């Protein structure tokens, strides 16, 4: 078995991993990116539409263009890459970590690293995970798989499609399938509001006259050798009203019903997870409950924009670099809990050092047209407020908190109040 040694090992070569590796390597740390796919770039490679990079690169890029940018940054900074290489296990190794890596080229490689950055991204929830009733027949895809089939392989999966869930990939695929001559019958969303970005609702559905049925659930998939139809019904006051059940004929069903951080590897090495996000519990350095293991990007929490993934990855890289220099300690003194309050589904990080400046990401549980983000301490004193407009569960909220706001606090809660 081969042995390799690095200061920082980044697991995952998508936007998060490449952005983190660029920063680590640019800071002079020997860094390796370990990617299980054959190519670096992750899911960006199949996202051939534009709309990426407006915040991070200040220009509009396609997914592959964005991937190329962050890949060149990482390789120019001197990061190393292992592709077609899967990390099977992370075990403690003295002050660092030992990664068991299976590679098609090299066989088994043992990679030693002082710090590890988890950047494995997320996976799509699928039909099976939801337990959607009906026949088990071909023609059912998760939206990302259909996207890969169409954009990477040039294969159109059917003629008439129904999209279940209004996640962004599903919306993008509604437009993509329409362009490829597929009739997209409708998009079904169980919640009373869309799961994807407002701009995608406008540009991918409304522009093409594709109906979006809100508060509507799929009740079955029918077919013998292949999908033949889908049935759905509205939810009235949260209860399925089967008397208003409808059937639509189609040969393809796409599921875009949420993303799940891929943290099985993290769990196996003892990283504690936040049940709300499925991502690791982290402090304000983005270090997990296992010292020296950091997390960023969609494996930490599912982001709306890749730009925020890159920004978070940079901050994560910065912490890992400081960890290697001994400037971030395994037990940071002065950590206090940061909890989600009213109308907040989750907040990242989960612990902060009182008195330091912080960058928070949070998501709302509901739609608020005019809102105020408030941070209160355990005494109920409000330490920070910011006005927000058009708050949507689908869109992440990013807050920069100055250090003096949180000085001497023993615990903090962040809430969204309607104005």
């Amino acid at each position, binding site marked *: 078995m081969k042995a390799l040694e690095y200061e920082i090992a980044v697991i995952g070569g998508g936007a998060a991993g490449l952005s983190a590796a660029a920063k680590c390597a640019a800071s002079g740390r020997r860094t390796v990116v370990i990617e299980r796919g054959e190519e670096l770039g992750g899911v960006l490679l199949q996202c051939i539409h534009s709309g990426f990079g407006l915040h991070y690169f200040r220009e509009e890029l396609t997914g592959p263009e964005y991937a190329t940018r962050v890949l060149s940054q990482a390789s120019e900074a001197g990061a190393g890459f292992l592709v077609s290489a899967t990390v099977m296990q992370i075990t403690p190794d003295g002050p660092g970590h030992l990664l068991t890596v*299976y*590679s098609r080229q090299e*066989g088994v490689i043992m990679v030693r690293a002082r710090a590890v950055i988890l950047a494995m991204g997320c996976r799509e929830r699928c039909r099976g995970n939801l*337990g959607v009733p009906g026949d*088990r027949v*071909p023609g059912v895809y998760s939206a990302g798989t259909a996207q890969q089939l169409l954009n990477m392989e040039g*294969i*159109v999966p059917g003629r008439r499609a129904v999209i279940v869930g209004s996640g962004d990939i599903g919306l993008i695929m509604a437009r993509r399938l329409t362009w490829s001559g597929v009739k997209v019958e409708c998009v079904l969303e169980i919640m009373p509001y869309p799961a994807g970005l407002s701009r995608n609702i406008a540009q991918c559905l409304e522009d093409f006259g594709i109906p979006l049925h809100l508060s509507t659930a799929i009740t079955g998939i029918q077919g013998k050798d292949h999908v033949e139809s889908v049935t759905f019904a509205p939810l009235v006051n949260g209860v399925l009203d089967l008397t208003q059940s409808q059937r639509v004929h189609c040969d393809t069903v796409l599921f875009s019903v949420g993303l799940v951080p891929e943290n099985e590897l993290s*769990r196996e090495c003892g990283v504690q997870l936040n049940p709300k996000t499925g991502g690791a519990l982290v402090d304000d350095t983005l270090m997990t409950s296992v010292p020296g293991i950091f997390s960023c990007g969609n494996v930490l929490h599912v982001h709306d924009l890749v730009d925020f993934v890159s920004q978070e990855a940079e901050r994560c890289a910065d912490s890992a670099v400081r960890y290697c220099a001994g400037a971030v300690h395994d037990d940071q003194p002065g950590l206090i809990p940061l909890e989600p309050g009213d109308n907040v589904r989750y907040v990242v990080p989960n612990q902060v050092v009182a008195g330091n400046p912080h960058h928070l990401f949070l998501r709302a549980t509901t739609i608020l047209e005019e809102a105020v983000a408030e941070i209160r301490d355990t005494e109920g004193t409000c330490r920070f407020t910011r006005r927000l407009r058009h708050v949507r569960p689908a869109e992440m909220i990013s807050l920069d908190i100055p250090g003096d706001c949180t000085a001497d606090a023993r615990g903090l809660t962040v809430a969204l109040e309607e104005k």
Partner: protein
Amino acid sequence: MENIFDVAIIGGGIVGTAVAYRLAHRALSVVLLEKEPDVCHGVSKANSGIVHGGFHYSATTTLKGRLELRGNQAFDRLQRELGFPFQRCGILVVAFAEEQLATLEKLHAQGVANGVPGIELCDAERTLQLEPKLNPPVFGSLYAPQGGVVEPYRLVFSLMSAACLNGVELRRRFEVVASRNLGESWEMTAADGRTVRARYVINAAGLYADVVSSLFGAEEFQITPRKGEEYLLDRMSQARPSKVIFPVPSAHTKGVLVIPTAGGTTMIGPTAEIVEDKADRTTTAKNKERIFGLARKMVSGVSERDLVTSFSGSRPVIEGKEDFFLAISAKAPRFLQAAGIQSPGLTASPAIAEYLEQLLAEAGLPIKDKPSPFLPWRSTPTLRDLAPQEADRLHATDNPAWTNVVCRCERVSEAEIRAAIRQGHDSLEGVKLATRAGMGRCQGGFCGLKILRLIADELGISLEEAIRRESNGKAQVSILGGKEK
């Protein structure tokens, strides 16, 4: 002159393949006819994978009770010979109400009378010791340490592969639609016109055994499908018990179980519902709720968040008969019935094979051992179970594909998938059942296309064709920019 086989087995489920494996040891020519593209694609595919404990039925008054116990005891030897996943993890039938204790006592007495080794009636304290994940209050249990779990697909596939290695012929996509008695032999015709001749025929056609029986002019009976839905939980589910957890049974069903599967996941189910359609493989919202409700009451940590997938299959029940129908036909010559093999058919299968072999002898077929030695079947190693050193050695000495992880959720290598395709498991479903690739939490979201590409590569067809093949050509796939067909 067309070859005449000594024995034709109709149906490649657990019964058909167990018989094939047994007869492969004898000086006989044997053919197995399967209507699907692969074996284990009917009743056996949705089997719960329990090796039952031998106490649910009386071994003196029922054939299935007798064969269950004998079958159970054969599993250690079979596993040594074939290498399929099997664990004797034990079975615990738990009373969650005081009035259920009487039934437990009856079952215990039956187990003792049947001669089940190690069977034990436990009080509440001992029960919770044996299985700390049970939800109190529990009032007692019946513990059968000899019970276990097996991966049904790997069991069936390895029986078939070992049989084929030793001369049994497998005809896939061979649905028998007609038969003709030629005096000394039967001629069977497939839907596509192929024919096969054999002196003796075993009807192991599962849900369609009634149709087959009728085709040969044998006994008339009706197979009623009794459908069961199963719900599969993630291998990281907190609910995974150390033993198979049964509720106290009712008159018609053993109830909803919590199963620590041999593959490392947790499965809850099955239901038991009479349905009309033999091809019904649907799952329903109502049963999902019911199964989760019942399982949650028995074992803590059962959560819908861990749901990976659900599926269903039907048990082939002979109308008006709960026991197995294993007999020499009284109406059709040289025709043997192996019908109505519902639970505990998988457990009993090694003993069913033995029983059918005796029936063949009774019907006049001389059973003699093969003069040549039986060739041992070597199952493909599974990457999941290999130490890194071993994986590295296989990468260096056998094939670099050993360290290419194609299915990340179940950790299946390219080498295993290619081997499965070459063994004839050349569909997504076949690869999944043979290797577990695509069976995990992402349900093929990440690896489905990779596997299709491997199938296309191995079969020398296009990816588009490989997709179309998955749905008997019904998929409306087209190449982007290509002409509308």
